[in-house]
């Protein structure tokens, strides 16, 4: 199982599933990260964390810790 925190900047992935039961999961869904959404990992912050991702046409900042609950699949680009 691959999760979003393992993805290097410059790659695009598709969301498979969100894990956990936390408020974090709900917040991620509110922000548009749901099943089959495309996520482009744009870059990491200067100190390595958080990361900036592009989802549904806008930019989102997310900690690697929180990104670990997003199961993803590589797109074939």
């Amino acid at each position, binding site marked *: 199982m691959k999760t979003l925190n393992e993805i290097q900047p410059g790659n695009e992935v598709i969301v498979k599933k*969100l*894990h*956990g*039961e*936390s*408020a*974090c*999961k*709900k*917040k*991620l*869904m*509110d*922000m*548009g990260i*749901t*099943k089959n*959404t495309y996520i482009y990992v744009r*870059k*990491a*912050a*200067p*100190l*390595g*964390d*958080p990361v*900036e991702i592009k989802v*549904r*046409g*806008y*930019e*989102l*900042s*997310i*900690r690697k810790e*929180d990104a*670990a*609950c997003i199961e993803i699949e590589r797109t074939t680009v």
Partner: protein
Amino acid sequence: MKTIALAGNPNCGKTTIFNAMTGSSQYIGNWPGVTVEKKEGRWKGDSDIKLIDLPGIYSLSPYSLDEVIARNFLLNENVDLIVNVVDATNLERNLYLTTQLLETGIPVVVALNMMDLVKNHGDRIHIEELAVQLHCPVIPVSGLKNEGLDTLADTFVKDIGRGDRLHFSIYSENIQKYLRRVEGVCSFCDAAKKEWYAIKLLEKDEKTMEHIAMINADMQQIDSMREEMKAEFDDDIQSIIADARYVYISDLVAKTYTKTRNGMCLSDRIDSIVTNRVLALPIFAAVMYIVYYVSVTTIGGFVTDWTNDVLFTEIIPPFVEEFLISLDCAAWLSSLILDGIIAGIGAVLGFVPQMFVLFFFLALLEDCGYMARIAFIMDRIFRKFGLSGKSFIPMLIGTGCGVPGIMASRTIENEKDRRMTIMTTTFIPCSAKLPIIALIAGALFDGASWVAPSAYFIGIAAIVCSGIILKKTRLFAGDPSPFIMELPAYHMPQLKNVLLSMWERGSSFIKKAGTIILLSTIVIWFASRFGIDDGAIVMLEEEELSKSFLAVLGSGMAPLFAPLGWGNWQAAVAAITGLVAKENVVATFGILFGFGEVAEDGVEIWNAMALSFTAASAFSFLVFNLLCAPCFAAMGAIRREMNHTKWTVFAIGYQCLFAYLASFVIYQFAMISVYGFTMMSALAVAVFVLFVYLLFRKPKSKEKQQQKEYAKA
């Protein structure tokens, strides 16, 4: 009176539209008991229509304070209409909230903002189709260019209070069948709100469950429906619903949005430089330097110095004094007016110009989109001790003056982070504390160069340690709030909005904090100018401070400070007058040691200081004054920002206790080399051990973390 609520995502341009529609008739305050800003105004076209600007939110789920506030307002306050401001350049995510607003059963008018940008990009939105699909009016507007706002007003005037809405559901057949079944059990609400409650009941939404009285049999029925639904979709209800909303929205956007552009836009290009791995930190440092330099040292500093040293020293007091003399005013009254009231007002107003300059910059940073990047860049560091990246700004400003520093905490979204930042910001030595450092360093440490840096080091250490300790207490514990933050597209800041935001924040400080500060300075004035002489209460000369009530109070309090090494009443009085303004500490020593006026660093009294203090007790005095309750102006700001008496008392109490214990431990440890190990030393060791324990103990929410790890595995 009709009520219209303005709802929308953060950064959707809601404020611009609110400002355009209410003009100058705005009232700005806080939502009851919380630190979230509340804005209210009357519509320009008809003062019988009240507009409420709800906090910017992404969803109506109950996970953040802003969301809860917005939700409670919409559900409980008889809102007649919602104007949903939607950022047309970010349609997909913005419509997510729209789908939830429609479900509340309140009439909705969608204001499709930033249409000019969409057109500039060469994209097209099929407005009529969008309105048909959403079953509500959709009005294209541009808040920035003031376009379409008249049409928006015409529409809401027509639509307000029109209860008969077309009911439609965005959900697919197989979800709807569950919703209709739950609705069958919901007999407590009117038809328009049924779908909303059905979803909330299925989601087991805590905030909703608290308010609904349902019999157990009905509850059990819903429980079984929930389980059935979970089994059918193989997911939890919240995920099913969120998924379904986005499926509907994706489909809707595909039908109504024609995109022509591709590749990087200007905002992306700016961002690739500004948050670049190598350049981000230097650029950040440069921006912070400019903000600090202009607002604290140059423009803000000049104007503040002018207000303090010229306006409230050379211009107003002589003028008023002359006037009072011409009236033949009683000495006590003219002293009250000059030394109490005018000095008090001056102490408050002195900060105002500096604050306005600072608020101008903060509004600029927020408006152009850089504020979110600051949090992005600094998050890694501040998260370690329980704060967020945005806490950096209040602390930086705090080195100049704690008052605007505390007010700068406004930009932090998370309420716990904001409270924590308000509590700890004044630990950083502000410019008014510098004379105290100079006095102590000069009088007892031969002007040693390590004293001033050590003051900053102690301030930073106090913030870091307090962050770690407080985060582990029940007040601040709980789920670590996820740091999931939008990085809004950069855009040109709008002067009008920036100025308005500056004015709102600045003037609300003057109004609210001014009263407390004024009252406190009058009380201190009375205590320092009156005393008992020959059995009667008399007014004293300035040099007779030692006979005043304040001196009596100081003597009474002195034993309290004896364990810190400075149990003489002069030091106690100086610490109390420091509450009016920290600059007073040095001046008070001047008077008490019989020197009258002294230089800023009190060079005249260095000898007298050296006689009544030892190195250890002086350093302990310094630490206490650095960390304890700040001046009245800053306490006023704390009260204003906490918006809660209990929290204000807690914050100031915590600061005093922390200061007391830190000075105690420092002094008693230093005394071991003089007197050997005594009872007091043992007590100091005990305090220190307790401190270390609080710092390193495992947080309360250990079980939760374990659960999380378990879930991951």
